[in-house]
């Protein structure tokens, strides 16, 4: 279980990117992390991975996250974290060397599924292929917690849909996915829990089962939590039209 307690993060002397975040992520869940741009989703994931310094504590099964247990976390990011000059095949060798639980079978299977070339440099793949490759590495590492930050940005809807299906099919019950994305409706049927973050604070945390029982959908819950003003667009349009007149 990942336990996040009182985690705050400030970039330089600027505004807090995270403010006293408390969150528990048990094993075996698929958690959607939602929030507007700049809400703190990426910062939170990077803090969990130790890529950013923060105040507060983040533990994995009660232990701080260090080189001893970092292999239990993997990361797929829209910024990409692969080695541009290396081919997928070379990545496989490197990952096998560093991550003892790396799954050759899963890697090869997913490479085949997405029809990615094994011997081409990663930097020469298309944007969509790069995203796929990034996710393949994260899924094959053998991690218990797979952190994904907007992993499908730049992929077409068919690719994304295929991916959700594959993901649901291959995940072991002990594997946890923490998925940060804007694609609420697409992942609604795929996640088991939704966490909402706004201006660096957790403003909503709900299981999909709860929502279903209450007969609500994720978009409605998000709008409600975010105090979304439904008349916002019509007001703006009317203001703009008035101005022109």
């Amino acid at each position, binding site marked *: 279980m990942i336990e996040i307690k009182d985690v705050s993060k400030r970039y330089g002397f600027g505004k807090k990117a995270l403010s006293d975040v408390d969150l528990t992520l048990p094993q075996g869940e698929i958690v959607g992390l939602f929030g507007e741009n700049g809400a703190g989703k990426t910062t939170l994931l990077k803090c969990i991975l130790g890529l950013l310094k923060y105040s507060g504590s983040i533990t994995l099964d009660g232990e701080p996250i260090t080189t001893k247990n970092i292999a239990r976390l993997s990361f797929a990011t829209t910024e990409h974290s692969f080695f541009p000059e*290396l081919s997928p095949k070379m990545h496989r060798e490197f990952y096998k060397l560093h991550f003892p639980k790396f799954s050759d079978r899963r890697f090869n299977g997913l490479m085949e599924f997405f029809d990615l070339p094994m011997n081409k440099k990663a930097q020469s793949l298309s944007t969509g292929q790069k995203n796929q490759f990034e996710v393949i590495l994260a899924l094959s590492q053998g991690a218990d917690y797979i952190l994904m930050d907007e992993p499908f940005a730049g992929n077409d809807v068919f690719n994304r849909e295929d991916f959700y299906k594959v993901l649901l099919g291959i995940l072991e019950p002990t594997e946890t996915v923490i998925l940060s994305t804007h694609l609420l409706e697409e992942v609604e049927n795929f996640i088991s829990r939704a966490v909402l973050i706004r201006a660096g604070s957790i403003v909503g945390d709900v299981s999909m089962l709860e929502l279903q029982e209450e007969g609500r959908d994720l978009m409605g819950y998000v709008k409600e939590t975010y105090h979304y003003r439904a008349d916002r667009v019509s007001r703006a349009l009317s203001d703009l039209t008035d101005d022109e007149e």
Partner: protein
Amino acid sequence: MKLDLSKYVPLGIDSKRAFKHSAVFLGVSAVYSMGFAFSYLHARNSLYMVEHRVRVLIPGAMMPDFASILGGYLMGFAVTAIFMLGLAAYYYIYHYHGGSRSMYTMRRLPDRWDLWRRCLTIPLVTILASALAAFLVMLVYFGIYMLFTPDECISPDQWRKIWDSGLIEYAW
């Protein structure tokens, strides 16, 4: 046992080429230091005059100190060392190039030293090799100076003067 050099450079950089470049830097520094020979010969020739077609020592002529003849001829090694600091920085920044931040992967490896091994091995080895080469070259040149300069023309405490001259600090 064959040493796998690729473990000592960032992933994607040709290790053999990187080591070769370092060797070239050291080689050029060594060649540059050979300018000492010209300065030395020039200074040594100045000790003599020709009398009746015979080269004789000028009475009271003194050889300039070793440190002053050596001057900046070890500079190449210092430049190599400075360049290596730049190379270490380049290797670090390299993990942000090519539209990917492979630094994220490097920083979450269970082997915490892998990143540093890849960024620092060649620069550090080359800096150490530079320092060692500079010292050895200086010893050889000092030997030449002491061996081939007439004893009466050498002012005392040459070894101490090297350190007093600030030459070492100057070179490094």
